[in-house]
């Protein structure tokens, strides 16, 4: 059967490659889930490192942490309910990705506030604080701690090579072990860096500075210097990957997940992987926050949810 819509879209944009995009989307989550399986269920990994930090948050900050954790839980439970009742996976994949994203984003917010006492005012600030948090605590598990500072081409190349360490696995295939999955994660990480670097370069080209100096590309040394100075201060983290993934799936990728060949099995796998990653991340966030919050307030929060939360209990 002719894929009329796909043909039209491809005719319009040659970069439109549903098969490639589908693999990237499904396989990245699979690689994350593979890596999560390595340490899930999460045990008390934070206890020794964070014991000193208790009792330092204001009540208002504590409240934000509780709110974000509860919101994260809400999305997680929603995702769980959908995944447990999948009949037609394509119908719900977009919703699932949104729930997954919301769960992790709110978990990150809670972690950041519980650790710093700062309530991020925008995503840039959140990205910066999350980056610092991961730098500070080396026990944040691997799939969530891939990050880089200084996005200049040379540094990115070195970092990626170092991470790859000869592992050439990409997202074009389905990872069947931890090593391959890690290769897939680095591949997506590398792609994300490239995506954001391109965005930043475009922003620069459209900036007042470049326009006023008549810079149209990065062929000149001066343009390169501006570019590298700008890029050297930028960071990419798991949060960037998360945001990019959500952006892709909620936009054009959602078509790949719900159009054309029957991919029910793979999409179902993706939804289960989303759930596993979200569960894993929310567990980490909960443990992390528990160690930063006044123990008494934490216990009250837990006991209150125990009695009053109307959300389904999941395990």
């Amino acid at each position, binding site marked *: 059967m002719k894929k009329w819509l796909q043909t039209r879209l491809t005719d319009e944009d040659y970069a439109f490659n549903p098969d490639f995009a589908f693999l990237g989307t499904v396989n990245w989550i699979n690689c994350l889930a593979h890596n999560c399986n390595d340490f899930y269920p999460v045990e008390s990994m934070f206890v020794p490192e964070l014991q000193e930090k208790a009792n330092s948050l204001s009540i208002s900050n504590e409240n934000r942490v509780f709110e974000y954790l509860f919101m994260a839980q809400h999305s997680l439970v929603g995702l769980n309910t959908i995944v*447990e*009742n999948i009949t037609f996976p394509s119908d719900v994949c977009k919703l699932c990705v949104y729930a997954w994203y919301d769960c992790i984003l709110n978990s990150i917010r809670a972690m950041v506030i519980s650790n710093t006492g700062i309530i991020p005012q925008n995503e840039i600030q959140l990205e910066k604080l999350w980056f610092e948090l991961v730098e500070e605590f080396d026990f944040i598990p691997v799939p969530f701690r891939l990050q880089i500072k200084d996005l200049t081409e040379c540094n990115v190349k070195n970092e990626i090579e170092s991470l790859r360490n000869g592992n050439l696995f990409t997202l074009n295939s389905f990872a069947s072990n931890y090593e391959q999955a890690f290769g897939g994660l680095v591949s997506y990480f590398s792609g994300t860096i490239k995506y954001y670097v391109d965005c930043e370069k475009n922003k620069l080209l459209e900036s007042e500075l470049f326009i006023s100096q008549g810079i149209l590309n990065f062929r000149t040394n001066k343009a390169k210097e501006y570019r590298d100075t700008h890029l050297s201060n930028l960071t990419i983290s798991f949060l960037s990957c998360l945001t990019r993934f959500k952006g892709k799936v909620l936009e054009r990728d959602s078509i790949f997940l719900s159009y054309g060949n029957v991919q029910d099995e793979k999409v179902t796998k993706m939804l289960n992987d989303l759930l596993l990653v979200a569960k894993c991340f929310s567990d980490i966030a909960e443990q992390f926050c528990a160690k930063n919050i006044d123990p008494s307030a934490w216990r009250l929060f837990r006991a209150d949810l*125990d*009695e009053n939360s109307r959300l389904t209990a*999941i*395990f």
Partner: protein
Amino acid sequence: MITEKGLEVVLREQLNSGSIEPQSFLLNLVELHNTHSSERNVQDLIIRCLENRERFKEYGHILDYLLEARGLFPYKKFDDNFKDKITKNIVTSPLINEMGGSKLFHIKQFDVYQLLMKRKSVILSAPTSFGKTLLVEALIATRTLSNIVIVVPTLSLIDELKKKFHKYTVDSDEYVVKYKIITQVNQAHGNNNIFLYTQERVIEKEGFPVIDFFVVDEFYKLMPQGMDDYRSERLNIAFKKLLSLCGFFYMLGPNIKNINPLTLSKLGCRYIDESNFITVATNEYTFTIPPGNDAERDVTRNEYLKKIINNISGEQTIIYCKSPKRASILANLLSEIIPLKKEHDLNSLSNWLKETFHPDWSQSKIIQHGICAHHAKLPRSIASLFVDLFNEKRINVLVCTSTLIEGVNTNAKNIIIYDDCITKRVQLDSFTYNNIAGRSGRMFEHFVGNVFFFGEKPTDGLNQIDIPIISHSDNVPDSLLLHYDEPYSEKIMGRLNKYFDQDVLSIDVINKNSGVPPEAQLEFASDLMENFQSWHKLMCWNNMPNSGQLNHINKMAEKYFSIKSFASGAVKSDVQLSRKIVSILKNETLKDIIDQDYEYFSEDDDDFTIDDAVLRNFDFRRKILGHYYPVIINAINNIQEYVFTKFGYKAGNYKAFILRVESLNVTPSLMTLEEYGIPISISLKANKVWKVKDSDSFDEAIDKIKCCSYSDDFKLSELELKILEKNIIFL
């Protein structure tokens, strides 16, 4: 001339005052005995003489004459003469005492033993220290019976009997017959077996071997104490099942006045009432408590209590309270009166309780004073440990609820009945009073026990015991009526019609779900039939449910079977029940959960203590997850299986899930060790060496444990090792 009653009073006064001329006292006692009146009182006086045997040393032969005349052979000092030799020979039991000699029966035990040896079924009513259970042991010791089933009301009694009968399980050159003690439903049989079961396990057990003899302990529990006495219902069903397997039985219980004649004639057995045959004497002291609410009355009670405790300092004492909470409060109060014992072992135990359960649990502190609160909420191994410590006199005061009075043997000299009621509203009756009071004194240890009663001594009690499954009495719940054999009376048929005239569930399924009201089963099954398509996905699962399925099943458990009502406030909704089960499945620590509950509930309730949080969680784990939840989920399982199969749908199977929840998400065999006095915290540590797996049967687990009953790699504290070593031998 002095009357018999007058003589008794005089003798009693002499005994109490201590101004006795031994010879004339004993001769007067002989005279009183010869009148054959007031036999219980004569026996009481004779036993009191034993308390001061030294005083009567010179006239020991008269005392021994009286002991023999009353049939109290175990107390008599036998001579080497022919007559004594003959007598002793006749009343010698097959049991061996601690000194390696033979134990003697008293005359009444001997009578019952003779009947049992002739394979005559007997129902015996006799006081606590009579030695009713000893007769069971005597029969076992004859090693003439291959398979014996003993039904007891509580797991504590299984624990006690298991230890008592352990000696019949070991290899011996002397005997060919050796028994295997079976306490779990899924254990394999040996050649000769002693099944120590609760009624639930008798019902659950499939494929009993040929049974030669069965025993029902505390048989009065066969008579329902209301229309929702499901334990009685199950005991009746178990009794019927055993009766269909074996016609030879022995039922024992205390202070039963009589048995429904119809029941007796149908059973064709002997009923023997030896309620007046005492082997220990009792001093009863009654203290009047002015009317008022508990708080007001407690003021007076506590004044009396302090005085009594000061007077009986150091003696083994049990204090009865109506609830675990009150037991806990009272134990704390006593710790202010009774000084610290400063014993290394008690200190270690205190620290262990703090580490294992909660640092602020008051029990961990008061144990250092030699005091324990014993009740049904405690983890089984801990309850068993407390009883052992009490019997070893390491602790001297047990503050308990009714749990301890249902047959568990202790060496208490004093019983203080602090509360004159069983629950908030139900007053103590004379039957229960006697049952509690009967715990005072112990043969050879405390010839005279003391009972201190706060309140007005009750007069009403159990007048007549009925066994509904035999008599077909209609004063029982429908669920029990459904187990009656036909023909039914018109009245019973009228009640059962609603179950026979429906095609929602088969009677077999309803009966399989014993303990779950049939009406509720039918209502659930009807709704399941109406919604079977939409509920199928939520109910057709094996092994473990997903979250939605768990929530659905809990919703059903609450909506149709009111699971919440059994939770004593620990669960307020089906959603919360799911969350609590998930926390168990996620292995959240008990300590964390207790902390959470305490923090939360004490915010609004100043009276909510850490002990309340501890008890609430103990209760939830033991009562809900350990009993009610499995019963209800099992019923739901049976019903969905029936309905879905009927509609040609695939059915679920919840058995693995039930086992996992019941075992609090630890290896089931390790959880079973709790019944053997081994706390789960210790088993989990030792299992790093034992390597018992989830899939191992209990027999396989025992083999693994016995293979390495000791290892340095256990990484257990000295105390933990002691607890383990002490109990592992009974596996």
